[in-house]
């Protein structure tokens, strides 16, 4: 059993209530930080912990916090990114639904560190019932003096609000999220300025993922140095992985960073192996945006070393033979899956979610969807594969926000590793049958 720090209490009855959460050690980090530490010391512990942003990019959290501008007399904000719309990702939902106070506690401790008097949790609109759970938890926290004026009798005061979105993947991009929170369309901003300088309402702002903020609690409780001992190298601590697709046990798992991918897929503690005893074909390891890898490359690196669940090991080999840990959305495909058709679902997704500001993204995602559609319908042309390759190359690096890359990488990697499958689709349309097997559902 690996170490668990975030969802170890998820099975405790009524852990969603303040009472039970506190009986199980909840809000210790608020007590410790507010009563015995300075804000700078809290930031220092987070730096020492080596915690990296759990929203996808993996940027060191302590460093991000230290960039926050602090002009006198200007409000600062902490905004929690609970937009969670990257296909394959549902770990934040699990955490918020089961242990809402873990996030609220993290919001208070982190806001104290940043000197934020107000914080917002921006949650995707579809998670309305989760917003309800968070609201209830926040109300409990206010009643217990953990939020509001002079928290626990200290001179730190803080208000935390939930803000629901209304269905838009792009609002997970931090500047689009801020636009949306200001009551506008979710169009990403041109950077710089970065949110640390001019974020929400033009004020210095830190945007962090749900899991990142929740991880601040164990870091403060155990100390940054202790936290850094968990995991391997620069991949410190634990990570929530949401596993889905053709596996026996889909769900959210907390792993110690560093376990072998093979163990994660096949051990009964985690995914429990491939559904119906079929063979593994491919994995998207970190949400739809990261490169898809065939079985042999996800289990072992090109050098033949076992691939581990760490930021470094998953990206070993770059985009030629590696992928990324991303958001921890781990999607498994068995031997019956059509990679081309699956890619089509991704291409449709990115086209649907493009905000439309940059022409390479707006047009390119549409073209990729269209071309893939004609391929899966049996009307593809041999030149379509190169055309797809060309389009994705022209999107990458030419857009305001990384959604462009996110749309390009799945296409590039599918062609790189499964070119033959595209060719088969195009050259033998008469053989096409819908290979996605439908299932478990019936």
């Amino acid at each position, binding site marked *: 059993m690996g170490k668990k720090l975030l969802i170890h209490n998820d099975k405790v009855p009524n852990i969603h209530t303040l009472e039970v959460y506190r009986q199980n050690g909840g809000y210790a980090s608020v007590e410790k930080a507010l009563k015995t530490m300075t804000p700078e010391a809290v930031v220092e512990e987070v730096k020492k912990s080596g915690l990296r942003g759990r929203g996808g990019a993996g940027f060191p959290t302590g460093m991000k916090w230290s960039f926050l501008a602090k002009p006198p007399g200007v409000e600062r904000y902490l905004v929690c990114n609970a937009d969670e719309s990257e296909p394959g990702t549902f770990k934040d939902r699990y955490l918020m639904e089961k242990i809402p106070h873990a996030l609220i506690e993290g919001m208070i401790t982190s806001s104290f560190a940043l000197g934020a008097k107000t914080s917002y949790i921006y949650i995707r609109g579809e998670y309305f019932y989760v917003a309800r759970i968070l609201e209830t938890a926040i109300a409990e926290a206010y009643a217990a003096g953990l939020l509001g004026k002079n928290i626990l009798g200290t001179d730190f005061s803080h208000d935390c609000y939930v803000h629901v979105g209304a269905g838009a993947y792009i609002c997970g991009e931090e500047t689009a999220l801020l636009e949306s929170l200001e009551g506008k369309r979710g169009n990403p901003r041109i950077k710089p300025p970065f949110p640390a300088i001019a974020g929400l309402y033009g004020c210095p702002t830190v945007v962090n993922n749900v899991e990142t903020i929740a991880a601040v609690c164990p870091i403060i409780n155990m100390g940054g140095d202790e936290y850094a001992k968990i995991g391997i190298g620069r991949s410190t601590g634990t990570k929530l992985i949401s596993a889905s697709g053709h596996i026996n046990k889909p*769900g959210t798992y907390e792993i110690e960073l560093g376990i072998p991918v093979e163990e994660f897929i096949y051990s009964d503690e985690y995914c429990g192996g491939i559904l119906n005893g079929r063979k593994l074909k491919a994995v998207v390891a970190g949400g739809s945006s990261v490169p898809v890898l065939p079985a042999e490359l996800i289990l072992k690196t090109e050098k033949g070393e076992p691939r581990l669940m760490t930021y470094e090991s998953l990206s070993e080999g770059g985009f030629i033979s590696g992928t990324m840990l991303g958001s921890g959305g781990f999607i498994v495909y068995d031997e019956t899956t059509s990679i081309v058709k699956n890619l089509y679902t991704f291409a449709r997704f990115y086209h649907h979610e493009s905000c439309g500001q940059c022409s390479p993204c707006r047009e390119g995602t549409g073209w990729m969807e269209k071309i893939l559609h004609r391929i899966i319908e049996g009307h593809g042309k041999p030149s379509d594969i190169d055309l797809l390759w060309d389009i994705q190359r022209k999107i990458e690096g030419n857009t305001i926000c990384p959604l462009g890359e996110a749309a390009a990488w799945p296409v590039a990697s599918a062609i790189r590793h499964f070119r033959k499958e595209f060719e088969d689709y195009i050259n033998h349309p008469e053989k096409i049958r819908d290979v996605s097997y439908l299932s478990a559902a019936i």
Partner: protein
Amino acid sequence: MSKEIKFNEETLALVHKMMKRYPEGKHKSAVIPILHIAQAEFGGWLSPETMDYVASILKIQPIEVYEVASFYSMFNLKPVGKCVLDICRTSSCWTRGAEDVIKHLEKKLEIKAGETTKDGMFTIKTVECLGSCGSAPMLQCGASYHENLTLKKVDTLIEEYRSSGKQRSYTDLDYKNTL
């Protein structure tokens, strides 16, 4: 739809309370939460009248509301059925049978995705990943997630919804405390 576009006093008080969650002068931030309430109260979709009303509450230009409403996929700009069935069809759901669910519903309700049944009861809407990939296939109706669907479960659900005849909204779960 003869209902007057106007919140009752209780809802209006709630809306004004919500606007106070944002700093002085920044109450435009509340536009999305208020649109959710308006959509739920005024027939499940946002008519121009409804959007104009929301603009008047927020004291902003109607265009500022239209441009927001048209950006987000949870807002319906055309009339919809009482139960909008949002069916996820992205990768993880697709691998576990989402297409079967869609086909089954299309056949059962005798409409295509994107359409509404003649009795105004159901709309089938295909959507992208709803963060329920580990319990695929799934559909959302109002605030409820229906997960690990089987065709049988879908049938039961439809019967249940049909016999209750109620409109389902994203804000169903006692939103008066939620927003």
